[in-house]
């Protein structure tokens, strides 16, 4: 199938009106970076407050800070970036000329931006921004406890951003299922595309529960009688967590895919156990839709045994995926690039998050640790020390494809090590604080508790993370200003996106190589090596000629 691009009539409108999936994804990433910096600033304020044991902000301001920090990072940074990576690379990896439903994808971008602006505009209202945590904890989020329009703006903002994400996911899903190039069967799709398929399925069929929950919450705030009493709170939480736990995996699977691609490329090996990985992904993604009520163990009204069973069962597919990663690295010809280091960091640190998740999956242990800093540490080990490391790995890996320029490796490694030190300094002490009984969401703690030392360590760590992010931004600026051309495939990668120019043209490919496996470029290289081995005289003659 050939493709014809209609030239744009108004180049000035290109960025905000472009239906090119690469531009939409690029815009989303830039906007997400702005929100990441804003959300990070809120985190630094919170850490300053806790290091000083109060005195920096009031409890009400602190409530707004942690609500908007969590909301920003989940709804406006990690999920959008995960989906934006799919928007950019899934069409390229399956050999499609464009994304399915380009206008729908553009609509998703607008909804995401408007949702973010809406959420943050709460800071400019007289009552301040939302302060009922990132899950809008009912009844705390009802009009009696959270009066003012800040909470309403939060509800609308989250609804809009989530709707935008559902639209993106639908486009990616349709592209992976219906726009694959000839020869690209389901079982020849790259790992990243498979993980996006799982992610987008969860998004399309799980996220509407959040929109419903927020609609009910808005109705309760303004009309009343919708989420009444204890049953109303349970219903809201059930609906919310049906979104709220799958979203953890929406923030995880895409980075598993990225890490898989990175490990295979920099180990110079075909990914080990491809089929087992796909089966594990199916089991994993289905299971992750049925673990949500482990966030509600202490309610004691849902079937704790069932949710403990499914939550613990997650270790089986996770174990298979880890085994595949390690087996791919085993005896590979490793190249310790920045992207590979971030991938290794993801594997190690996500393991800490995952293993502490098993502790929280046990109701008797969860009763003791619920709402403590142990949960905060676990969550941040999965989302920041885990997924964000996968994301940085993905950025260092794909930046040359997106921009045509290489990122600086030396700055990248500095970025990596600072982030390792910062992330572990920040989040590891929180396990001890939680075990000692420090509850989350408090702006002050008793001086006699002995928690200040560990809080100071965690706060120092958060500033190290901030320095690391500054190094990353400096790396991007320097690399774009003093460009070192990347070429089409600077890494010797395996998948189709590396078969086109860097950056790719509007219609993605001029020509596609034959697709006979999930690593078509590796197939080509192996065939060339085989040919050279079988015909040394021809090759030598060819070289001398």
């Amino acid at each position, binding site marked *: *199938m*050939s*493709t*014809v*691009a*209609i030239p*744009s009539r*108004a180049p000035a409108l*290109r960025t*905000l*009106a*472009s*239906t*090119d999936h690469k531009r939409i994804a690029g815009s989303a990433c830039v906007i997400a970076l702005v929100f990441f910096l804003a959300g990070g600033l809120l985190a630094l304020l919170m850490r300053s407050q806790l290091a000083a044991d109060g005195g920096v902000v009031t409890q009400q301001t602190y409530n707004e800070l942690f609500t908007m920090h969590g909301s920003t990072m989940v709804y406006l940074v990690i999920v959008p970036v995960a989906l934006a990576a799919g928007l950019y690379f899934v069409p390229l990896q399956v050999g499609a*000329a*464009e994304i399915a439903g*380009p*206008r729908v994808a*553009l*609509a998703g971008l*607008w*909804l995401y931006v*408007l949702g973010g602006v*809406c959420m943050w505009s709460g800071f400019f209202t007289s009552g301040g921004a939302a302060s009922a945590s990132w899950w809008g904890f009912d009844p705390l989020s009802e009009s009696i406890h959270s009066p003012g*329009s800040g909470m*309403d*703006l939060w509800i*609308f903002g989250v*609804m*809009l951003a989530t709707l935008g994400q559902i639209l993106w996911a639908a486009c990616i899903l349709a592209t992976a*299922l*219906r726009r694959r190039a000839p020869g690209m*069967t*389901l079982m020849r799709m790259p790992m990243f595309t498979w993980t996006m*398929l*799982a992610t987008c*399925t969860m998004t399309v*069929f*799980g996220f509407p*529960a959040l929109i419903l929950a927020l609609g009910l919450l*808005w109705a309760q705030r*303004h009309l009343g009688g919708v989420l009444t009493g204890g049953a109303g709170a*349970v*219903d809201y939480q*059930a*609906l919310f967590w*049906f979104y709220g736990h799958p979203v953890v995996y929406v923030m995880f699977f895409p980075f598993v895919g990225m890490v898989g691609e990175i490990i295979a490329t920099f180990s110079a090996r075909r990914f080990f156990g491809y089929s087992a990985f796909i089966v594990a992904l*199916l*089991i994993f993604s*289905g299971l992750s*839709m*049925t673990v949500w*009520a482990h966030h509600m163990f202490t309610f004691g009204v*849902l*079937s704790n*045994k*069932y949710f403990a069973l*499914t939550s613990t069962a997650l270790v089986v597919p996770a174990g298979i995926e880890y085994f595949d990663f390690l087996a791919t690295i085993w005896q590979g010809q490793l190249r310790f690039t920045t992207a590979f280091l971030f991938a290794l960091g993801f594997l190690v640190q996500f393991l800490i998050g995952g293993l502490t998740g098993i502790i929280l999956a046990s109701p008797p242990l969860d009763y003791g640790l619920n709402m403590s800093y142990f949960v905060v540490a676990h969550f941040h080990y999965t989302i920041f020390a885990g997924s964000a490391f996968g994301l940085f790995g993905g950025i260092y890996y794909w930046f040359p494809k997106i921009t045509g320029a290489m990122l600086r490796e030396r700055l990248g490694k500095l970025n990596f090590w600072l982030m390792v030190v910062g992330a572990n300094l920040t989040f590891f002490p929180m396990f001890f604080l939680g075990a000692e009984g420090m509850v989350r969401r408090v702006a002050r703690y008793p001086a006699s508790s002995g928690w200040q030392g560990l809080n100071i360590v965690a706060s120092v760590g958060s500033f190290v993370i901030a320095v690391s992010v500054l190094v990353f931004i400096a790396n991007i600026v320097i690399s774009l200003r003093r460009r070192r051309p990347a070429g089409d495939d600077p890494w010797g990668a395996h998948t189709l996106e590396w078969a086109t120019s860097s950056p790719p043209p*509007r*219609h993605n490919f001029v020509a596609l190589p034959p697709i006979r496996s999930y690593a078509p470029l590796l197939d080509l290289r192996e065939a060339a090596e085989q040919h050279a081995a079988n015909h040394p005289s021809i090759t030598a003659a060819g070289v001398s000629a």
Partner: protein
Amino acid sequence: MKRAAIWLLAWGLWLGLLTALQAAFAPKAIQFAIPGVASAACITSGLALWAADRNRERDERSRLITDSSSATGTLMVGVALALLGSGFGLWLILIGAGMGALGLGGIVREQRARGRTLRERDTR
């Protein structure tokens, strides 16, 4: 492409099976309802995709790639304003509705232009 529905069907059935498994644990109705609806929606989508793909032939004609759509942005701003209007007053709903109508008109215009281009190409 004819096997594309397999993923949705497998995923939906797996979720349905896990949902049904709750029966052994004295569940509340909401525990069944939420994942049950998601599972049913996924299976239905899979069946719809399977039915659509059954008789579908690969389209060998060239495909037009639309480069930009300012109307989409206008429509989405309209939707967002109308939604905000439900909390801030009828006036905002009306502004949102107006912008939405403008955006919809723009999308219709874009689609008609696309159709014209396709017809011109086919007659050439």
